[in-house]
């Protein structure tokens, strides 16, 4: 399909032009923020009543110091503790429309992939579509939410997170630098590839990835493939670690025989798999765990 790249470039230019035009004709005091779906949202003032329908978005809002502006969250948001008192308005894909409307939000932030986004806009609600999946998305999320919330330090906050990661890399034991890590995100053998957020985190900490790139961000891997890949370290959930030797061929895997396995508690799994402000605390746990392992 030779015409496809040209069409994409043309559409890119069109979206950028329309967004710039919208920004130019907006009232001077108004804020215009462009979401991940290319739709520009114009707010008359920074948002003060925010509904988030994705856990990572609630975490970023709170990390920017605007937790008190959250009036509604999705049912999977469980951090920080301050969100426990915020009204739950359903899931990211099946939010309760009436509950959201009653909260009178001046900003709803949610993933662009949810079909309900059109219905919310149809009801005249201000929706900003953001879905951080990788580091670049997270940087954009911080910037967009900073603009929508009128928080000038948003970019600086993300830069600080990256700087903290850089400092953390220096604390990785030299013997483990370059070690090939198999990071499992699900008991069904879904692994984190180099193209995922976790994969990028591993790379930034100086680790390698047992999964080769090109398989997608979270490929479903066959047990045999992992045995053949022979990773140096396995990072799996606490619930799974006791069942590793039951997988065909895994009992003889050197990493398991030499106990080079990190058992990940759920809280750390959330911190590592959700692209958000907890990436540093999740990375700290990962580095601490791997440093404690004995390299053979």
């Amino acid at each position, binding site marked *: 399909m030779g015409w496809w790249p040209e069409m994409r470039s043309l559409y890119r230019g069109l979206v950028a032009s329309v967004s710039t035009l919208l920004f130019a004709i907006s009232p001077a005091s108004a804020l215009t923020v462009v979401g991940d779906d290319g739709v520009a949202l114009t707010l008359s003032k920074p948002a003060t009543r925010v509904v988030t329908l994705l856990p990572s978005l609630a975490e970023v809002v709170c990390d920017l110091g605007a937790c008190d502006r959250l009036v509604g969250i999705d049912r999977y948001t469980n951090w920080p503790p301050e969100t426990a008192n915020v009204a739950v308005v359903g899931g990211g894909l*099946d939010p309760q429309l009436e509950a959201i409307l009653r909260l009178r939000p001046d900003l709803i932030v949610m993933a662009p992939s949810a079909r309900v986004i059109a*219905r919310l806009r149809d009801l005249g609600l201000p929706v900003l579509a953001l879905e951080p999946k990788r580091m670049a998305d997270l940087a954009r999320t911080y910037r967009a939410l900073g603009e929508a919330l009128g928080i000038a330090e948003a970019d600086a906050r993300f830069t600080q997170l990256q700087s903290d990661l850089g400092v953390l890399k220096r604390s990785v034991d030299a013997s483990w630098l370059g070690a090939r890590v198999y990071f499992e995100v699900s008991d069904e053998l879904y692994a984190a590839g180099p193209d995922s957020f976790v994969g990028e985190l591993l790379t930034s900490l100086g680790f390698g990835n047992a999964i080769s790139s090109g398989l997608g961000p979270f490929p479903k891997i066959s047990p045999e493939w992992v045995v053949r890949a022979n990773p140096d370290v396995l990072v799996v959930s606490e619930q799974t670690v006791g069942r590793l030797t039951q997988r065909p061929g895994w009992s003889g895997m050197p990493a398991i025989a030499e106990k080079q396995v990190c058992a990940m508690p759920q809280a750390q799994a959330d911190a590592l798999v959700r692209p958000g402000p907890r990436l540093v605390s999740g990375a700290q746990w990962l580095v601490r765990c791997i440093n404690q392992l004995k390299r053979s």
Partner: protein
Amino acid sequence: MNARNTTSAVSVALTLLLAAGALTCLGLMVGDGTLRWPWGLTSDPITAEIIWQIRAPRSIGAWAAGALLGLAGAIAQAIFRNPLADPYLLGSSSGAALAVAIALALASWLGADVSGAAFWGGFMAFGLTGAAFTGALLAVILTVTLAGGVAQGTRLLLGGVVVGVVLGALTSFLTFIAPNVLLNMQGFMLGSTALLNWSAVGRLLVVGAICMAIAATFAKPLDALQLGERTARSLGIPLSQVNAIYILLLATVTGAAVAHTGLIAFVGLAAPHVVRAWLPCQHRALLLLSSLTGGVLLLGADALARLIFSPMELPTGLLTALLGGGYLLWRMGKVGRLS
């Protein structure tokens, strides 16, 4: 149909319309954990918006989608002369599901490039509904092609099964390689009336009215078809043309319903059975009454879905599967005791 039967059919139709009216009122009352009559509450602009922009289009849309499914079920059972035939028999549900999966997967892959997401973001609102409708129609065309035409019911049934299985496997494959679309697909497969707005209501009512008018016009050949294909041909019924018209109607009404509500189970299957148990009648009345019954069933399920665990709601399709399946089990038990 003689005068007595006509009177009975009219009475049943009026009863169904009254039931629809009552359930619509229930639908306006349900949604925030309380059961309150909306009159007098509309002075609050938020409440007024909830009632007129969420509950009202949702309730009427549920009735309209249910009516389409009821009509589709009656058509399917008539042309295949099989009481177990449902609207999805010709693979339309699998086609719609595959089209939605493709649209979601493409949007997800292109979303890695923000501008790609921009391309699909604007497309999503119309795209998923349009994709589902297109997928449903294409699947039926594929079935008809595999069956070598519309003349033979058995070949159409087999073609529909094959298409359903193959397209279902392709959908599973897509969700396997793009697991991030799984949750969205689950919502579509379970069926929901939550996204119905006034535009959707308009589309459903227009499609329903046109298809009902055409179906009623050509209802007499359906009565002849119940005597068997050979007998129908001997009576001068142009079987191929009749089948073609009704298969097109079946694909259109099913596609329209599925595009807006996802895969709602059992409404299309159960509605004609409810009508036949109530009032044996010819197809001109059966088509209309099945449509009205389907509307009442889905409208009732929608209200229940919002009422049972209010303010949380169950997927409407889950409830129709439980209730419709339960009703058919009861009917089977009753028929078994009588025989």
